[in-house]
């Protein structure tokens, strides 16, 4: 017999229900952690995609037919000659129609709508650009021209995403707290159930740390076991979400959170059972030592 099984802790009710409870906690923590990483990845993707770009909208004139190609060329010439702009390209009608397709569907012919001409502008990194002056000069060519820097809405989007990330972190923290409280409760219950044996061990000269070791390794085993129980459905859920996202089509996928988690995320999620085991170990040890210190 190893020196760690003097107390029959395996026969306690907690040995049966605790792994399932911890399994549920780890499942939720894994989802929250995965969501946090997914949001983070999406933010990085949005940032990479939109930072350093401008979108110029040349509106169709209210009267007098569609915007002339000469005006568009003039605007493009102005943009390409502006310091800090590396490229400028107008989107053709089919590209614009593709952008609108998710919102308008196939029933509306985009070409029949008075859509503005969109120009995608790439900025040079580190070179300042006076957007207000550029807007004024473009408006002189095509009245009503606007220049969208994406900053404002991207900022809002980032704020919302950060809130979701904080929410995910809070959920993980809350789950950790509940796990600690559960281990404290079950450890105290175990101490009460096994009080006669604990008393006997003391009489035989067992130190508090010897008794604490029994509880701490039991809590570690249960935490680890529960963690693995929770991790399996979490991985299945991630796989299912990724599969569903892949089936969803390309339209919304550009805005949807990144569901292909990075290696770091898999590593963090994979370590959740070990973390749960260690939380159980430390919590049980501290609980036992503090409880026994009050005994004669």
């Amino acid at each position, binding site marked *: 017999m190893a020196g760690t099984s003097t107390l*029959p802790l395996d026969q306690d009710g907690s040995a049966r229900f605790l792994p399932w409870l911890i399994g549920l906690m780890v499942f939720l923590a894994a989802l929250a952690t995965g969501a946090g990483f997914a949001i983070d990845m999406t933010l990085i993707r949005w940032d990479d995609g939109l930072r350093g770009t401008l979108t110029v909208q040349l509106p169709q004139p209210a009267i007098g037919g569609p915007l002339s190609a000469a005006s568009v060329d003039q605007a493009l010439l102005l943009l390409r000659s502006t310091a800090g702009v590396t490229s400028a390209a107008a989107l053709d009608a089919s590209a614009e129609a593709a952008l609108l397709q998710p919102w308008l569907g196939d029933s509306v012919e985009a070409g029949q709508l008075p859509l503005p001409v969109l120009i995608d502008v790439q900025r040079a990194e580190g070179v300042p650009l006076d957007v207000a002056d550029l807007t004024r000069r473009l408006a002189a060519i095509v009245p009503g021209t606007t220049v969208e820097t994406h900053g404002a809405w991207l900022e809002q989007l980032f704020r919302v995403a950060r809130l979701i990330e904080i929410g995910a972190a809070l959920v993980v923290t809350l789950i950790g707290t509940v796990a600690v409280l559960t281990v404290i409760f079950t450890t105290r219950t175990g101490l009460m159930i096994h009080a006669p044996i604990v008393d006997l061990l*003391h009489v035989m*000269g067992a*130190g508090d740390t010897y008794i604490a070791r029994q509880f701490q390794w039991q809590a570690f085993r249960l935490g680890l076991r529960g963690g693995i129980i929770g991790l399996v459905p979490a991985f299945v859920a991630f796989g299912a979400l990724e599969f569903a996202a892949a089936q969803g089509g390309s339209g919304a996928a550009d805005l949807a959170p990144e569901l292909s988690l990075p290696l770091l995320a898999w590593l963090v999620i994979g370590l959740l059972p070990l973390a749960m085991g260690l939380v159980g170990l430390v919590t049980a040890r501290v609980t036992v030592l503090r409880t026994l210190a009050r005994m004669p």
Partner: protein
Amino acid sequence: MLAQTAGIGYAKEQFAPTVAAAARLRLHPSRTGAWARPDREGGTGVVRLENVALRYGRGPEVLQDVNLELEAGAFHFLTGASGAGKSTLLRVLYLAERPTRGRVWMFGQDAAGVARADLPALRRQIGVVFQDFRLLDHLSALDNVALPLRVAGIDEAVIKEHVVDLLRWVGLEDYLDVRPSRLSGGQQQRVAIARAIINRPSLLLADEPTGNVDDLIGLRLLYLFEELNRLGTTIVIATHNAALIERFGYSTILLRDGRVTMRPGTARKL
């Protein structure tokens, strides 16, 4: 063979050579010094109680002004009517209770002054045989007896060797892996005794060890305690059995209404 018939292996007639056998037995000495140590204030005895009183909560004092000194190698009976405080006094002696007032000196150390971290070392010098044995039924006989060594952190190979030796000594070599609930009362008692002495305690306390067994086994048990006493262990046996006390004739600690009176030993009537 009598031992087999009675289910025990230490009948007196078989027990004559056990002093030598026990001396050869490599019982593990307590890590803090096996036998009584000379001390300063606490006297030269194994135990010294000075004006010890104990009450539970706001209840009356179960022990009152107990003054007691147990010399190394002494053999005492502890007796008194039910409720007189025998078990409580034993709990004080094996450091499971702290007195409400008074001082307890164990092996020359003031127990009240001993840091909690040092209490286990002090307790390992005390062996206790409980009236109800308090064997752990989820452990085998071997593991039950090994417990005091395991809690002391002794190497497993050493533990196994010593425990097997001791269980052989008490006639239970064929029951090493048997759980207590599958042993007879007498066999359980021997496991409990083996567990109490495996650490070679300086002080052995036994609470009504003959209470659950018939007279013959009770008698044989006393012979076993005598053998241990000859090896140097101070023995205190709490018992109601007046016949046994008279028969063995050792001095008696008489508890009455929580107070202690010492009665000197008498002539043996064996």
